[in-house]
C-alpha cells in the first residue's frame, strides 16, 4: 500500500514535469515578423510553426496599438499566419508582438513572440538591386545522353562481333 502511494506520488511528479516541460520550452519561441521594420500605417504579416499542423493562434499586437488578430494555417498546414495594420499614429520604437496557440493538444497555450520595429522614415531603404547576369548553369545538361552512349556502345559491340565473324570466315578460306 505504501509502495502504491509512493508510485502514485512519483507518477504525479513525472506528470507535472511533463506538463510543465513544453509550456516552459514554448515561451518566447519564434514568431516571424515580416517586414520586421515598418512605418506607421503599414501592414505586417506574422507567422509561426510553434502551433503544430493545422494549429491556429490568437495574435496580440496591442503593444503597437493594433489590437488582436488571428493566425490560421495557409498553404502549408504547419505554418499559422496572420496580419495586422500598424496604426498611422504609432510611435517609433520596438514592440513585442505575441501569439498564443489555441487548439492542438500539446501546442495549446504555447506563447511565441517576435519584435516589430516602427520607424518614421522609409521602412526598407530601397535595397540596391542586383547588377549583371546570373551564374545559373555549367552546361551539365549538354553532356552526352547516357542512354544514347549505351546504345552506341551496344552498336559497336555488334560491329565487333560481326567483324570478328567475317575475319574468322576469311581465315578459314571462305571468300567474302
Amino acid at each position, binding site marked *: 500500500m505504501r509502495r502504491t502511494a509512493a508510485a502514485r506520488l512519483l507518477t504525479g511528479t513525472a506528470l507535472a514535469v511533463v506538463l510543465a516541460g513544453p509550456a516552459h520550452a514554448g515561451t518566447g519561441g519564434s514568431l516571424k515578423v515580416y517586414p520586421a521594420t515598418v512605418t506607421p500605417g503599414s501592414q505586417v504579416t506574422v507567422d509561426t510553426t510553434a502551433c503544430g499542423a493545422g494549429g491556429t493562434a490568437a495574435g496580440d499586437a496591442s503593444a503597437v496599438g493594433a489590437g488582436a488578430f488571428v493566425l490560421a494555417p495557409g498553404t502549408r498546414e504547419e505554418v499559422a499566419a496572420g496580419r495586422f495594420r500598424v496604426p498611422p499614429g504609432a510611435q517609433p520604437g520596438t514592440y513585442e508582438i505575441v501569439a498564443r496557440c489555441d487548439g492542438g493538444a500539446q501546442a495549446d497555450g504555447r506563447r511565441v513572440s517576435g519584435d516589430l520595429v516602427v520607424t518614421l522614415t522609409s521602412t526598407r531603404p530601397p535595397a540596391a538591386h542586383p547588377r549583371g547576369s546570373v551564374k*545559373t548553369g555549367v552546361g551539365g545538361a549538354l553532356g552526352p545522353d547516357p542512354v544514347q552512349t549505351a546504345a552506341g556502345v551496344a552498336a559497336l559491340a555488334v*560491329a565487333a562481333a560481326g567483324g570478328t565473324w567475317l575475319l574468322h570466315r576469311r581465315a578459314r578460306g571462305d571468300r567474302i
Partner: protein
Amino acid sequence: MRRLTNLAIAVATLAALLSGAWLVRGGGDTNAPPQPSAAQAARTPVQQSARPESAPALPASPPLRIRIPAIRVNAPLMGLGLTPTGSLDVPPAERENLAGWYEAGTAPGETGTAIVAGHVDNADGPSVFYRLGALRKGGAIDVERRDGTVARFTVDAVEVYKSANFPDEKVYGAASRPELRVITCGGGYTPGRGYEGNVVVFAHLTGSNP
C-alpha cells in the same frame, strides 16, 4: 547464297560500326536547354504590356514555392543575397529542384519588381529552370507565400540577354505595379566559356488566391 549472307553481315557490321561511333560521340543531339523564340520577346516596352489586367498589389509576405505548370516546375524558394560583385547570388547548384528569390528586394505580389533565379543545369544534368526558355507569353506562374496566399503572375515576355550586355534597369529596375522576373542561364553554350547569358521571364501579377 553464302556470299549473300556474308555480304549482309558485312553491311550490317559496317552500319553498326558507323551508327555506334556516331552515337558514342554524342550524335546530333546536344541536349541544350530550350531557348525563347523572337516571338516571345516584348513587343512594346515591358512595363506597358497591360493585358491581362494587372491585379491589385498584395501585402508583403515572403514566398515559399514557385509553380510554373506549363513547364512542370514546382520548387521551393530560398532567400538570396548579392555576391561581392553585386550580382544576384544563386542557390546551391547540387540541389537541382531549388530556386531562390532576392530577399532584400520586393516580395512577389508586392508593388515593385520581385526577382526569382534558379539553375538551368548543374554538373549532373538539368536543374529546376531547364525548360524556362520554353515558357510562352500568357503562361501562368504561381507563387505560394507564407501568409497563405498564392500570387498568380502572367508572362509578358521571355527574353534572352548576353552577359556582356545585360539590361540591369529593364530586368531589376523598379516597377509601379507588382511584377516578377524569373532568371536562369541561357543563350548559346561554349565549352570552357559556359553559357553566354541569361533567359529572363517578365511577368506581372494578375490575381491571387484566396
